[in-house]
């Protein structure tokens, strides 16, 4: 999956904006948004917020977690923990990129926030690398990835699943069937030629 497809899913996160205009609700297929009253905050999908912000029709209120102090604590906790801690948002990196990208003027200390989110991302990235190496060394065909966000999961794709699939292939070839007529070996999955269930 490409990162812009993960972003596509993350763009459905609801965030708070303050519109600069008045308008009746928008009746999206995916649910009504609005009504819009100038200066009255309301929640809209991220993609709507970004669109309105680009037209300078709203201010974006950063999500609760996008706060320097909270992020500092998060970073410390992530650092001191050997496993992954739960992120305040399933799409923190998408939200950070889009909101900081279009609404820097609405968010105090943007640069520091950007840096610290990048730090957290990097700490988790290096944890991911050593977990991947461990998994491969143990040839483990199962892993819990509970606290990983979708973009993080996607960042170890395709390398980790593909490497495990190759290990599985090397291992299970032990039972491979020599296909005499073709002069080639087929692995069990090919030989059964059928789907599960």
């Amino acid at each position, binding site marked *: 999956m*490409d990162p812009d497809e993960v972003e596509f899913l993350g763009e459905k996160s609801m965030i708070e904006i303050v519109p600069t205009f008045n308008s009746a609700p928008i009746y999206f297929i995916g649910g009504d948004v609005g009504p819009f009253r100038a200066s009255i905050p309301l929640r809209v999908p991220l993609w709507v917020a970004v669109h309105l912000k680009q037209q300078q029709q709203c201010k974006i209120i950063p999500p609760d977690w996008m706060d320097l102090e909270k992020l500092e604590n998060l970073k410390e906790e992530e650092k001191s923990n050997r496993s992954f801690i739960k992120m305040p948002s399933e799409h923190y990196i998408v939200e950070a990129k889009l909101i900081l990208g279009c609404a820097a003027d609405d968010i105090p200390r943007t640069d520091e926030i950007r840096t610290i989110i990048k730090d957290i991302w990097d700490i988790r990235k290096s944890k991911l690398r050593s977990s991947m190496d461990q998994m491969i060394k143990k040839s483990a065909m199962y892993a819990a990835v509970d606290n990983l966000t979708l973009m993080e999961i996607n960042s170890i794709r395709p390398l980790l699943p593909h490497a495990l699939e190759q290990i599985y292939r090397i291992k299970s070839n032990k039972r491979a069937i020599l296909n005499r007529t073709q002069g080639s070996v087929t692995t069990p999955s090919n030989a059964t030629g059928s789907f599960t269930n």
Partner: protein
Amino acid sequence: MLPSSSYQPNYFSIEDILATQERTPCKFLQDVPRMGKLNPSAEEKDLKVGTELELPLWLVLDGAAGRQLILAPELPKIYREAYREILKADATAIDLHKFNLYFYELGSYIKHFDRRGDVHNILLHTFTTRFRLIMDLANNADSDPTIQNKLDTLERRLFKDGHNARMKLNTWLLESGIPLKAASMVDNHRKRKRVNEELV
């Protein structure tokens, strides 16, 4: 095979056809009339029992199968003990590409002739030990491109897929917008055309 899935040999797979074209040693267990031409160094019409040859894997696999064996396969030297010891000592230092272009694929076929499982174990050991190398290579945008020359075909494919995904992620993290692009074949076609025009 789906473009997004990892390598899985099938009947039409170019990689599997090339891997099964690799030559591997064997010894004939029977006389084979009219097949003397399989042995380039002899001029007889028939192939004699006891002849030792290196033949393409597809032929060796076929001759070593069935109720009546025509030939007995032998281990290619890269899977024999001396080479296994080198891999056990430090698999990451090895130029696997020089061992064989299809180290894992060839090995996966060959190991069926190795009852003790040594080949199986060395394949698994080599792959799991060298994974870190491939991962670091794939994650590192500006790593030495010559390192990937030391990978076998399977590792190279893993590296390439991993590297492409990493590059896409890096672009996404850094750029504010990702442009829509011409399809890859269209793009290549245009570049080739430009080169041709310049040559003319």
